[in-house]
């Protein structure tokens, strides 16, 4: 019973560390207080918001597809958001942040629908083939994005934008992230319906859930979370995959009671990775997406091999 | 022909099969029967070397199925599993020709072509040779797969539920062809069947498994008894004779005479 409060305490401790770790001495140096409010607080809030949102949207994807290896990374959703962002900036280089977010979210929405449409068409819905197809879709979209970037001389920019990092998350830029807080809350509200929808149209209709509506709602929640996070922070690979999986490993598969755990887990993982990134090569910062990419791929592979062991 | 010694197989912590000791002599048609999860398919798959046993030995025609050369084994034993799903689009003749691969490694000789033709004729597939598999009905497709294992021309032919997805007419016709293959071609055929009445009507020998062990084995006359079947399937089964055939009746267990449900598997002779 005390486990969840303990996890929350861990998250708070990490967040406190996040507030005080960095090159600039916010306690002793002159103007430290101001720096504290300009960079550290926005950064820490951003960690909470994006960590929660990406972990929870991973869970939503897993409910909708009934496949525990699907999240924004393995469905191409992130790549679509990136494509949307690139197009926006190529067409209107001065587009304000909300516009960027809107287009990125719309692209992510369209991309996720494409993924779900593909899933509905394939005969071979093996648990492991589904993420492979999602990754292939992501590669297609990346090919398009690369093409656009290469023909517009923006390749290096591409690398810089989509390397997920909280370095540039400062006052005036992070506030839009509050949008994803709404997403997280909505997921709590509609979790049960998402689970039912994941069982398929027939089951959903039988128990009186409007399948199309719920799928669209879930997809748009994921799209907004992904789109906004990509614009403000960048790619956060595997977050939505690793956290829900570890939570259900520890606690079993009761989605509703897992939700707060997934939230806290997302915050803990992304904060810990960010702290590692900030401290490992001081005074430089290692982008959080790289730390996450390494940690996440290692954990994912461990999960895969574990599944292999269990199944045989 | 087939010698199974102390074979067992676990899935995780639970024992799926064994320990099983069994001899199946050359020739004839042997049916493996038993309730769901009894280990019939597992046993057949191990004999067909698609699955390695945890311990024990299986020899077919003198060859140890785990250690013998795959190419030699493929000339002695063939196996057809229930699910066959291919990416490639194949015609019936192409599929059946694959049966000759162990003999010719893909370069068909005149003798290979004759064997293919014989297998096609045996299963009444003449006229369908150039049809693609996905253009066939379920019964025709199943015949094409059986033709492939017959073209392989092995002494031992293992079939995992060859009657699944066939209606009455096609199921009976398939069993008759397998019966003919045993009688006319001298094959040793071992198959898993779900419906004991097919085993009763066509098999020379019935082997009943339950909980991963052989619980009864003998001729249809020995196995098709109320007390034996009731014990094997753990449900009341009566046996009636009709036109010289022994038929198991198990619909509405409450209507089966009480005497039927009390026997034990005493007919076991292995």
């Amino acid at each position, binding site marked *: 019973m005390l486990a969840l409060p303990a996890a929350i305490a861990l998250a708070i401790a990490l967040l406190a560390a996040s507030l005080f770790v960095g090159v600039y001495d916010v306690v002793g140096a002159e103007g430290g207080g101001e720096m504290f409010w300009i960079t550290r607080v926005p950064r820490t809030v951003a960690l909470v918001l994006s960590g929660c949102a990406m972990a929870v949207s991973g869970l939503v994807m897993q409910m909708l597809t009934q496949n525990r290896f699907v999240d924004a990374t393995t469905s191409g959703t992130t790549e679509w958001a990136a494509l949307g962002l690139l197009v926006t900036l190529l067409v209107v280089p001065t587009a304000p942040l909300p516009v960027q977010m809107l287009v990125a979210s719309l692209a992510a929405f369209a991309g996720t629908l494409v993924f779900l449409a*593909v899933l509905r068409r394939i005969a071979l819905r093996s648990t492991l083939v589904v993420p*492979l197809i999602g990754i292939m879709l992501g590669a297609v979209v990346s090919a*398009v994005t*690369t*093409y656009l970037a290469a023909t517009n001389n923006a390749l290096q920019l591409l*690398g810089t934008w989509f390397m997920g990092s909280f370095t540039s998350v400062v006052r005036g830029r992070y506030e839009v992230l509050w949008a994803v807080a709404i997403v997280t809350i909505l997921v709590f509200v509609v979790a049960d319906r998402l689970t039912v929808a994941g069982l398929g149209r027939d089951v959903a209709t039988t128990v009186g859930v409007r399948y199309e509506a719920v799928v669209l709602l879930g997809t748009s929640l994921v799209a907004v979370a992904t789109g906004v996070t990509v614009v403000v922070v960048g790619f956060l690979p595997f977050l939505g995959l690793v956290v829900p999986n570890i939570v259900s490993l520890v606690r079993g598969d009761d989605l509703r009671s897992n939700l707060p755990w997934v939230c806290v887990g997302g915050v803990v993982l992304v904060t810990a990775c960010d702290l590692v990134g900030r401290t490992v090569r001081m005074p430089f910062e290692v982008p959080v997406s790289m730390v996450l990419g390494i940690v996440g791929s290692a954990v994912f592979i461990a999960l895969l091999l574990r599944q292999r062991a269990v199944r045989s | 022909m087939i010698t199974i010694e102390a074979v067992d197989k676990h899935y995780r912590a639970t024992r799926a099969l064994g320990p099983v000791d069994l001899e199946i002599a050359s020739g004839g048609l042997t049916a493996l029967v038993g309730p769901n999860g009894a280990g019939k398919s597992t046993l057949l798959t191990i004999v067909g070397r698609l699955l390695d046993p945890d311990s024990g030995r299986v020899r077919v025609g003198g060859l140890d199925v785990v250690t013998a050369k795959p190419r030699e084994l493929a000339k002695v034993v063939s196996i057809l599993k229930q699910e066959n799903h291919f990416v490639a689009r194949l*015609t019936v003749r192409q599929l059946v020709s694959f049966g000759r691969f162990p003999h010719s490694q893909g370069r068909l000789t*005149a003798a290979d072509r004759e064997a293919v033709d014989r297998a096609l004729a045996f299963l009444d597939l003449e006229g369908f040779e150039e049809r693609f598999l996905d253009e066939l009905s379920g019964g025709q497709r199943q015949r094409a797969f059986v033709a492939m294992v017959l073209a392989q021309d092995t002494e031992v032919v293992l079939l995992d539920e060859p009657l699944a997805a066939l209606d009455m007419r096609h199921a009976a016709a398939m069993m008759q062809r397998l019966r003919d293959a045993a009688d006319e071609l001298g094959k040793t055929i071992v198959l898993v069947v779900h419906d004991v009445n097919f085993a009763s009507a066509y098999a020379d020998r019935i082997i009943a498994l339950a909980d991963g062990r052989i619980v009864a084995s003998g001729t249809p006359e020995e196995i098709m008894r109320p007390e034996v079947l009731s014990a094997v399937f753990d449900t009341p089964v009566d046996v009636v004779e009709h036109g010289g055939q022994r038929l198991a009746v198990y619909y509405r267990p409450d209507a089966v005479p009480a005497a039927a449900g009390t026997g034990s598997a005493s007919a076991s002779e292995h």
Partner: protein
Amino acid sequence: MSAEASVPTVGAEASARPAAAATTRERRVPLAAIVAGAAAALFAVGLLVWGNPVPADQPGFWVIVQSRSVAVATIALVAAAQALATVLFHTATGNRILTPSILGFDALYTLMQTALVFVFGMAATQVEGVGKIVAQSALMVLFATLLYGWLFSGKRANLHVLLLVGVVLGVGFGSVSTFLQRMLTPSEFDVLAARLYGSIGRGNPEVLPWAALVVAAIAVWAWRRRAALDVIALGRDAATSLGLRYRREIVVLLVVVAVLVSVSTTMVGPMTFFGFLVAIMSYQFVSSDRHGQVLPVAVLLGLATLLGAYFVMQHVFAAAGLVSIVIEFVGGLAFLIVILRKGLR
């Protein structure tokens, strides 16, 4: 039913003597092979002689042809390697929508290149030659053999787990590369980008013979094993019943695919969808799914497509540098269309 049974026969000789041919639905030499071969030859010659500034009757003409032949040979090799790799990969995985690049070789290649520039800076541009290529290819093959051998051994061998682990490793490598790229100066990044994105036009004559040898050897090997490849495509159960050591065959196939991909990647950088494009076209154009037909058609189609694309980009759009990016773009779209229209089998 009887109407369906009367199948249009392609070869009259075969239908007269049914036992003589494997099937009457197959042409001995597929039409697609002839057309693709002719197109490939045409584009190759076009690339060599078209737009040559020196008139044909002067010796300088042949000097230019010779210097262009390096690029043409590079394109041809890459096309053949990608086509073979993708078809063999489809056979090994029993799946026609994955591409071998999914196994993380491109990512490993990108990582190695990035690390080179990162560690040695601009000096890395001077490190060229056979030694580097051999070392890179050896590293990739070693990685492939260890990974597949490990993942596909024991009782728990599972092809899908293997693929997914490869993909995820690729993402892990990608994270490291992106991070390292971020640490580069813009001029260093330009050097790297030139290496990573389509250097088709700048073939390295020193490497060509080696690469050609490897690709040719694999092509011969695949051709000789075409019947076994047909059996492998039937899947584990059928292949085992027909006397193949399935697990070993798959690991060997995957390592061969890895070799082909690394040869191609070393020469012109990563390509994800070109092979897919070519393989899908071959399956469409060939009347039978036998490797004896699919493999040659895929190779010839690959040659025709890549040489043609290069010819068109160079002489029509004057943008030869973007060839592989454009092909990836088109291939990606083709993938999307195929998967949305047909779904998977």
